């Protein structure tokens, strides 16, 4: 079922490309759009396994040849399995079970980039995303699920490159490396998370 990791980003890309005119030099003058598959590697102590269950959508406007501002929305789910262990719960009761933990992150907000080499095939950039992040922490054990969710502040620096094989046509590919930090915190069972940090990669299309 791993191939379904690619399904949603591919769907986004298909929708986006269908909604634009194939012969146009770019979808919107002085604008860019990215639709990416996202691989996230978290470090939060709750669900730290790397996962490709993520996607990123971003669009922006070229204020100058080098500077863009825009908006983004992405999501990511990460899991981690915990073998049988005994937890002393805040109530003083105890639970022994094997678990699977999941963290779902849904940040969105504004983004800014500084771009280089806009006329070349490879156009690198450095960017920063700021916004809000909704996160849900879940524990699955036996036939049960417990979860908690909350909002936090989101900050994510990023470096990447847009690749346009044809210089006269702004349809191409996108690759990026990012780090993110969010202030989401939560307590679940005997676990406590005080922030979410991730690094990861994005691969997709750019137009």
């Amino acid at each position, binding site marked *: 079922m791993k191939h379904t990791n690619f399904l949603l980003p591919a769907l986004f890309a298909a929708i986006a490309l269908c*909604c634009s005119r194939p012969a146009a030099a770019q*979808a919107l003058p002085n604008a860019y759009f990215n639709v990416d598959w996202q691989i996230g590697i978290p470090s939060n102590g709750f669900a730290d396994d790397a996962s490709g269950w993520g*996607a990123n959508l971003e669009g922006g406007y070229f204020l100058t040849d080098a500077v863009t501002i825009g908006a983004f929305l992405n999501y990511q789910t990460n899991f981690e399995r915990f073998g049988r262990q005994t937890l002393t719960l805040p109530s003083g009761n105890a639970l022994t079970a094997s678990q699977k933990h999941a963290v779902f992150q849904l940040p969105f907000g504004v983004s800014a980039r500084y771009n280089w080499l806009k006329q070349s095939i490879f156009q690198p950039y450095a960017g920063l995303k700021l916004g809000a992040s909704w996160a849900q922490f879940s524990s*699955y*054990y036996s036939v049960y699920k417990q979860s908690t969710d909350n909002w936090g502040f989101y900050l994510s620096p990023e470096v990447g490159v847009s690749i346009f094989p044809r210089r006269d046509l702004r349809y191409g590919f996108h690759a990026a490396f990012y780090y993110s930090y969010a202030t989401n915190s939560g307590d679940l069972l005997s676990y406590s998370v005080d922030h979410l940090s991730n690094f990861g990669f994005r691969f997709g299309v750019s137009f």
Partner: protein
Amino acid sequence: MKIKQILCTVALASLCCYGCQKDPSTSSLRNEYLVYTAHDAEARFAQIDTYYIPDKILLIGSHTVDAEGNKVPKYWSDADAQELIGTVVAEMDARGYTRLTDEEARETADAGLQLSYVEQATYFVGYNNPYWWSYYPYYWAPGYWGPWTGWYYPYAVYYGYTTGSLLVEMVDLNGGTENGRKLPVIWNCYITGLLRGSNTLDIDEAADGLRQAFAQSPYLKK
């Protein structure tokens, strides 16, 4: 026109995102047992000297009907049941408690232990409705332990009790029945994930679960 196309794209993408949360596969978790124990933090377990435990396990979800059409509770008392009861007895004895076996002792012991196995039914026990078995015909009635008017949990109970679950409850028989006092359940244990193959209870796993229940309840000792 292009702006409309872009907005359309963003709207569709957002709708796609709405349902994009991935749930993990939990099939492997269903085959591993879970042990949950809860207790009354005010209970004085060290002051318990004697206990009584019936030599049978109540089967929840199964009953027979007598000649007059009344529902009659069904109990499980074969060798497998005795192994599970024996496991509880061994754990209690190891913690310094003394088992009383005379039938009359169930009203005079300091504590009573009742075992139940959810054979067929699925019930939910929530914080606001922890008394589901008062609606279940012939669940371990408070009257089994003496002239109690009812019983209660001094703590919150959260868990859904599903088919294949084993329940152990300890009731405090020391408080006296005067003034309509209810019988308190001072410790309970819920074990699930014990079914194997064609819904057969794994006795060895159940016994392991019972031992784990006592291991994670260190306050149960003289």
